[in-house]
């Protein structure tokens, strides 16, 4: 177990192993997202009240899921990097921050586009939208902090601490914003119990969520691999790689 753990911590080993997974992940990602998009946009039934505009949830919901999950991925990687001094975890954390911020932005943007036909306005201070906005600020804080240190090691440590403080804070922020705005829609997808959506609408959404998870994993891997090459550029294995040996 420990040996495996330490092997995983070696950037070189990770780079080689992840290279083997990449094509499969890319295929899964393309297949799932293509299926989900075609199914959701062309075949899923129209919503009784919202018409076709509801179809933006096929982007909005998966992006919102991953926006929050991405923060926890980042914080967990930061914690592992801090506790076990694992360089690779630091690199994953650095790679996860902009990706999570981008997904948060997509969730907010699609939410606004969806809001115009549904509520008649691009922006309302709904609890979930507001929480998402605060989450975006948390991401921006981390990205800004990571860019201002002169050494990568210090930068990774600092961001890990901030991400952990943020993680402790997120439930409090979400609860307080919920409380602040008690008039929001009830959550549409519950983990327990039957979904309140029509199954024909729900199935493509599930495919899209899976597809987005694959997409997240794919981009996180690619970002991490770039970060590995950047940090290890002085080592012989990266030089050999660059020379195409």
């Amino acid at each position, binding site marked *: 177990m420990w040996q495996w753990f330490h092997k995983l911590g070696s950037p070189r080993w990770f780079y080689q192993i992840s290279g083997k997974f990449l094509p499969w992940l890319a295929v899964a990602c393309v297949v799932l997202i293509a299926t989900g998009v075609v199914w959701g946009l062309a075949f899923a039934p129209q919503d009784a009240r919202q018409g076709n505009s509801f179809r933006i949830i096929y982007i909005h919901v998966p992006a919102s899921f991953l926006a929050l999950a991405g923060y926890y991925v980042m914080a967990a990687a930061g914690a592992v990097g801090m506790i076990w001094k694992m360089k690779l975890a630091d690199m994953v954390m650095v790679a996860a921050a902009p990706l999570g911020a981008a997904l948060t932005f997509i969730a907010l943007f699609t939410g606004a586009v969806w809001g115009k036909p549904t509520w008649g306005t691009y922006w309302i201070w709904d609890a979930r939208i507001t929480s998402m906005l605060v989450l975006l600020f948390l991401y921006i804080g981390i990205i800004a902090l990571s860019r201002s240190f*002169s*050494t*990568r*090691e210090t930068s990774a440590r600092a961001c890990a601490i901030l991400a952990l403080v943020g993680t402790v804070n997120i439930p409090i922020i979400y609860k307080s914003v919920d409380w602040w705005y008690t008039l929001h829609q009830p959550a549409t997808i519950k983990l327990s119990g039957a979904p309140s959506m029509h199954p024909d609408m729900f199935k493509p959404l599930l495919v899209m969520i899976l597809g987005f998870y694959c997409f997240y994993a794919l981009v996180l891997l690619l970002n991490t691999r770039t970060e590995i090459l950047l940090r*290890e*550029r*002085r080592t012989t294995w990266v030089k050999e790689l660059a020379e195409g040996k």
Partner: protein
Amino acid sequence: MSSQPLLEFQALTFERDDWPLFSDLSGAIKAGEILQITGPNGCGKSTLLHILATIEPLNIGTLRWLGEDIAKCRQQYLADVAFIGHQAGLKSALSPRENLQWLSKLHPLSRCTSAAALARIGLAGFEDVPCYTLSAGQLRRAALATLCMTQARLWLLDEPLTALDVQGIADLEALLLAHVENGGAVVLSSHQPLANPAVRTLALDAMAEAAL
């Protein structure tokens, strides 16, 4: 005097973003020794002192205090170390006496009173003026006054000669000599050679060249 070194460092490697400052640096400081780190600007003298003081985290290598890994005995180690960096740690709004008083709440500075220490280092009469009225050399002396008071065995001094006049340097050398004769040890960085014959030097530039 026991032959066990106070502080040992083994295979210290320090790189800042993959740029090696020094690598595979080993050595030991015994009681009664003065180790002078020399080398050109930017060769890592301050960084090495910061690593020895545990301010800068250790990337690769081990530090041992009295034979024990410093990660396990950091509290005891810190209680036996006096560090003076480029910035002396004096608040300019406070007087030298007040500065020494609060520093003595943090560090074991109980060998003599702050007034006696200030007198010994040549600051008699300046005990109660705010530090911002003192000159650079006088500030340096005020910082060195902590050395008269400390009970720490190991002194880590980063460029202690900066801004000192001839008399100040002589005073400091006398302090260092008295300390090592009492069984203490000193690691200091400086460009200038010290008059003390017991000084051993560690040249960092040679190390860096060897590493590249």
